């Protein structure tokens, strides 16, 4: 492969990837360095996007005549007073705006989308359908398991134990799906290493294996 700036960047990415994967053997300085570099780059991107948004939807809009946006711009600057012990309370004003609007949206959407809609779906299903009955029973068992105002003894205890087993069943299914996603991420990254910069990958891997051999055998023998 030709040595270009693009290839050099991809080689750097490969080295950082292998450095992070070195954590699989054990925590080490190279991993820590790579991890810190990754966090730094991600945060740099976040900062850029934040500044971009403030400029585009705040400053530029104010300059083009939408003067009411001076208020949130000033409130945003006031957020930084949280770093002063004396003026810390001023930061509560912009926070109040964020919390007020967000809590209002949450209250509305949670009720409509997570409670009311679910109730409607449960109640409107005809109970001559076996699946609807099973869903209804599972729903009741789950809710009763998380209800702590009644003692879970006797018949109620048996019912809540059934609910607990249903909940654990769902956790097991969720765990299975979760591992699918994670292994998919491993596959993507390994595929990139093999296809984009195979030569750098081989060299980095050989260095890693040499380090592992040194740590496992040579260092032990010396000590």
């Amino acid at each position, binding site marked *: 492969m030709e040595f270009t700036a693009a290839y050099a960047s991809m080689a750097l990415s490969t080295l950082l990837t292998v450095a992070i994967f070195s954590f699989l053997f054990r925590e080490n300085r190279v991993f820590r360095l790579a991890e810190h570099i990754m966090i730094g780059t991600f945060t740099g991107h976040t900062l850029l996007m934040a500044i971009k948004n403030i400029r585009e939807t705040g400053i530029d809009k104010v300059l083009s005549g939408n003067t009411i946006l001076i208020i949130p711009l000033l409130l945003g600057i006031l957020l*930084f007073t949280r770093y002063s012990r004396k003026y810390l309370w001023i930061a509560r004003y912009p926070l109040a705006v964020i919390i007020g609007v967000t809590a209002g949206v949450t209250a509305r959407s949670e009720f409509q989308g997570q409670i009311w809609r679910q109730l409607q779906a449960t109640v409107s299903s005809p109970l001559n359908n076996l699946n609807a009955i099973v869903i209804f029973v599972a729903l009741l068992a789950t809710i009763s398991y998380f209800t702590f105002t009644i003692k879970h003894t006797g018949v109620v205890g048996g019912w809540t134990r059934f609910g607990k087993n249903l909940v654990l069943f769902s956790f097991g299914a969720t765990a299975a799906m979760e591992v699918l996603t994670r292994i998919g991420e491993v596959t993507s990254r390994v595929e990139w290493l093999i296809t984009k910069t195979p030569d750098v990958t081989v060299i980095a891997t050989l260095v890693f294996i040499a380090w592992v051999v040194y740590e496992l055998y040579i260092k032990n023998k010396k000590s």
Partner: protein
Amino acid sequence: MMSVVLRKYIPLVIVGVLGFFTIFSFPLDIKVFTDTSTQLGSWVMLLASFALGIGVINLFIVHGHPIMKKDKEKWPYSAALLLSLIIVFLIGIVDSVTGPSYKFLYDVIIGAGLLTLTALRGFFMFSAFTRAYKARNLEGGVMLLATLFVMMYQVPIFDSFLPQMSEFTKWMLDVPFVGVTRGFAMIAGIAMTIMAFKMLSGMDKSWMGREE
């Protein structure tokens, strides 16, 4: 007295007024309410951008400290973090976030780095499932069975020689599992709604930080 009103009560009133206005502006569907609600959404968008900046400042404080104190163990890593942050920031300012160099930088370093850090979890999950996922009692057995059924369902080969298992798992995910997740959704929905109303009514003041 005035100090307490300014520091405590006015922010609480702001939270309550804005919150209840946001809740009731939707069903009422009156233009002036909808327009005000939209305007408030723009304000929150701007404030959220400033809040992202707070996170970055915190990072500078946390990682600037070891560098200033010349902490032998920590300062090289903190310096690497802040240096990479500044380099990315400068490239983004010079080339702009939508420029070709920044796009390439993101693809090769930032996006790749994110994926690598999350891929580590894949290895540890694989190891945990192999070594630690044991059925020590009935409940553990139930959970393990569910995991095995769903994993086998995801792999097409099991459809060929265990089609009934595949059908059962599909029914399991579409019916009883739905009942359980609906229960979770309703419980979470009730909890979030109560939490939101507690904040709006001033009962929950944890967002205000420490009392003076």
